[in-house]
């Protein structure tokens, strides 16, 4: 026993010292789900993919689409054919070369794998034609302005077709992509280890031998680990810890306003529970919105680090409609609107996920709207139960959010169009449908913006969703980490990131 212990100690010692300097340890808020880009569904999984897998295209911090595995692309005049030229000399982690056939196989897998959760994202692609060893043509059933943005995310992630073929739906157990780091091991709820892929096409830009992701859900514990040196960086620092990190000379702070939002979805047409004044009379919803002081909410709960909001896009987004600014709190107007709707006071039940931050938000909202005459009853539910109630329509109003998408369509279309997949409000207005459908088909940004703005005016009157704020991604890093660039999609891109010497 003693000898074994000694041997283990020695082994640990000799192994640890030389590699330690170049291992990056990243604290994550959650444990990712299955590591198959076609099957996975969590935000946190995408953080791992960013180092593990390459996508056809990527984005800049300003959300412009830029080349990654596709070096260039062009649209046909009718907007129904997307031709992409591919990067040459790229190999997957198993040595399989990346080429046009691989892209075709990947898109087809996203479309046909029974377990695929990407089907709706690549629905518009009818077929993929290999037009050269390094060129593909995607033929669409209808123009789709959102497609490139989808290809900048999980739908555009390229996995080794050889490995995918062999593993089938079990690919996630040992994912093989073409990213700067390759998969080594995963211990559920404990760690995911990646190591440097020497044959990566841009290997010089990556400086760590290993990248280790450690899911640590508790924000205090995550930060304590960073302070003690057990982590080199962490994502989703609690907003209330921001000041502490900023004033800590041993740490660095980075933030980017996210693409998502949090809000209150009113049930306006989903089953019998929508048959109540709050669901039927938009004036009550507008009054509710006017009674909220979004700036104060942000200050109290998030110490001003998040961004107050009243639209699906944050105010710093190019898609934000500046003609509908964040309303200042106006209790008089709120009361007047309620009176118009025939209510002095109004009892309303809002469901909220039973995590401390969301309940804190709703308690603040509850206290604010009480002054206008809304008696809010909070119904705390586990997230799983909340989702089920939302989908079944057994709720009056629900505090819920969306992690956000690069393309504006992703934050809006499916929530407010009559047949939208996640339109739990069951709001339905043909005018909005028409505008958003047109915006989806147009490839001209100005044209699209005009339509989103027009839809905003209508939605702001009908108000099926009362937007509250936009979470800010916050990273805390050890001071020795340099070169990190925050992105609004919350991803950790490691190109150029290294330890200062």
């Amino acid at each position, binding site marked *: 026993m003693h000898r074994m212990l000694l041997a283990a100690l020695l082994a640990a010692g000799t192994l640890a010292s030389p590699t330690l300097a170049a291992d990056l340890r990243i604290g994550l808020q959650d444990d990712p789900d299955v590591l198959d880009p076609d099957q996975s569904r969590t935000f946190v999984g995408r953080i791992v993919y960013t180092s593990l897998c390459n996508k056809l295209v990527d984005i800049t911090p300003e959300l412009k689409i830029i080349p990654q595995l596709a070096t260039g692309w062009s649209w046909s005049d009718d907007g129904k054919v997307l031709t992409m030229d591919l990067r040459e000399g790229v190999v997957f982690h198993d040595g399989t070369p990346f080429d046009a056939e691989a892209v075709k196989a990947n898109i087809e897998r996203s479309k046909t794998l029974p377990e695929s959760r990407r089907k709706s994202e690549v629905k518009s692609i009818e077929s993929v034609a290999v037009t050269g060893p390094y060129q593909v043509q995607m033929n669409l059933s209808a123009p789709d302005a959102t497609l490139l943005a989808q290809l900048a995310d999980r739908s555009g992630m390229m996995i080794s077709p050889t490995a995918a073929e062999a593993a089938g739906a079990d690919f996630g157990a040992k994912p093989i992509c073409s990213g700067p780091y390759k998969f080594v091991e995963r211990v559920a709820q404990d760690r995911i280890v990646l190591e440097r892929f020497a044959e990566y096409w841009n290997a010089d830009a990556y400086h760590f031998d290993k990248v280790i992701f450690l899911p640590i859900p*508790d*924000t*205090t514990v995550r*930060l304590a680990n960073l302070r003690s040196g057990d982590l080199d960086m962490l994502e989703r620092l*609690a907003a*209330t*810890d921001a000041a*502490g990190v900023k004033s800590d000379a041993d740490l660095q702070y980075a933030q980017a306003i996210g693409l998502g939002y949090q809000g209150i979805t009113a049930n306006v047409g989903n089953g019998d529970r929508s048959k109540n004044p709050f669901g039927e009379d938009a004036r009550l919803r507008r009054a509710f919105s006017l009674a909220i002081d979004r700036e*104060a909410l942000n*200050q*109290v*709960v998030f110490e001003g680090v998040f961004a107050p909001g009243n639209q699906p896009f944050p105010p710093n987004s190019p898609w934000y409609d500046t003609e509908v600014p964040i309303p200042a709190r106006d209790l008089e107007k709120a009361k007047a609107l309620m009176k118009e709707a025939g209510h002095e006071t109004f009892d309303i039940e809002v469901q909220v996920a*039973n*995590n*401390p*931050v969301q*309940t*804190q938000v*709703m*308690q*603040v909202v*509850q*206290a604010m709207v009480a002054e206008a005459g809304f008696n809010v009853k*909070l*119904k*705390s*539910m*586990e997230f799983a*139960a909340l989702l089920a109630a939302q989908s079944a329509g057994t709720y009056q109003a629900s505090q819920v959010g969306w992690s956000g998408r690069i393309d504006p369509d992703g934050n809006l279309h499916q929530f407010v169009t009559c047949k939208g997949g996640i339109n739990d409000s069951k709001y339905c207005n043909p005018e909005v449908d028409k505008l958003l459908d047109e915006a989806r088909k147009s490839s001209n940004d100005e044209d699209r913006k005009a339509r989103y703005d027009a839809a905003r005016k209508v939605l702001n009157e009908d108000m099926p969703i009362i937007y509250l704020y936009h979470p800010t991604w916050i990273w805390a890093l050890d001071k020795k980490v340099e070169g990190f660039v925050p992105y609004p999609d919350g991803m950790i891109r490691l190109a150029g990131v290294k330890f200062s010497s």
Partner: protein
Amino acid sequence: MSAVTDTAGPASDGYRSRSRAWRKLKTSHSALAGFAIVAFFVVIALLAPMLPIDDPTATSWSAVRKAPSLEHLMGTDEIGRDVFSRMIWGARASLIAGVISVIMAVSLGVPLGLVAGYFGGWIDQIISRITDAMLAMPFLILAIALAAFLGPSLTNAMIAIGLSAMPIFIRLTRGQVLSVKTEDYVEGARAVGVTDFAIILRYILPNVFAPVLVQATLTIATAIILEAALSFLGLGQQPPAPSWGSMLNVAKNFLTQAPWMAWWPGAAIFLVVLGFNLLGDGLRDALDPREI
């Protein structure tokens, strides 16, 4: 959950032993200390509406997470509520949860245990197997699953705790019944035609009473911790109403910025649980005829 108490002793014989037990209880320092602690919290909880304290749900944006001061003796919480008044109101939730859930466990468990022990046979088999099955699942897991099924609320947490604690009382009662039912005086009563119901009421139940009381007192202690644990996981008392467990649940997000939010509820749970444990210990010593 601690193991079933080992108070199973021979039958106590009527009033004499009971008054002896009472005298013994009165001289037991630990029992008195426990009683004092419990009484203190009970009084506070009862008087909560009458005390000159802030509204426990009144928020103040200008006093978010303020450290303890003269104005707020225990500081303020994440949305500017007075922690002191939330502590006092929280005592209600914790005590009610502890007591009601144990009452529930006792009133379900004791009859089932009586029936199983007294009648034996297939009905005993069924009840015992169900008891075994419930005891084979980790107590907390069972309570978490039950609470998740019922939906997060204080009432549901109490039901979950009560159901999870029930098998302990079934097993305890059944054991007591088995040890008593072969006693001569029970056999004698049966021989002269006293009905089962009367036998249970007159001879069996009094013998079950003492160990159940001791176990119940100790289980209240566990139930209070369990309510706090469920609230800590978000499955108990729901905001804005306070309970010590849910206060801790929120407090853990502000450990570094506002540690006082975590001090008080934890300390209070500790104290009240200590009180019930002391009381339970004292009761056991007083009611247990075996001297240690």
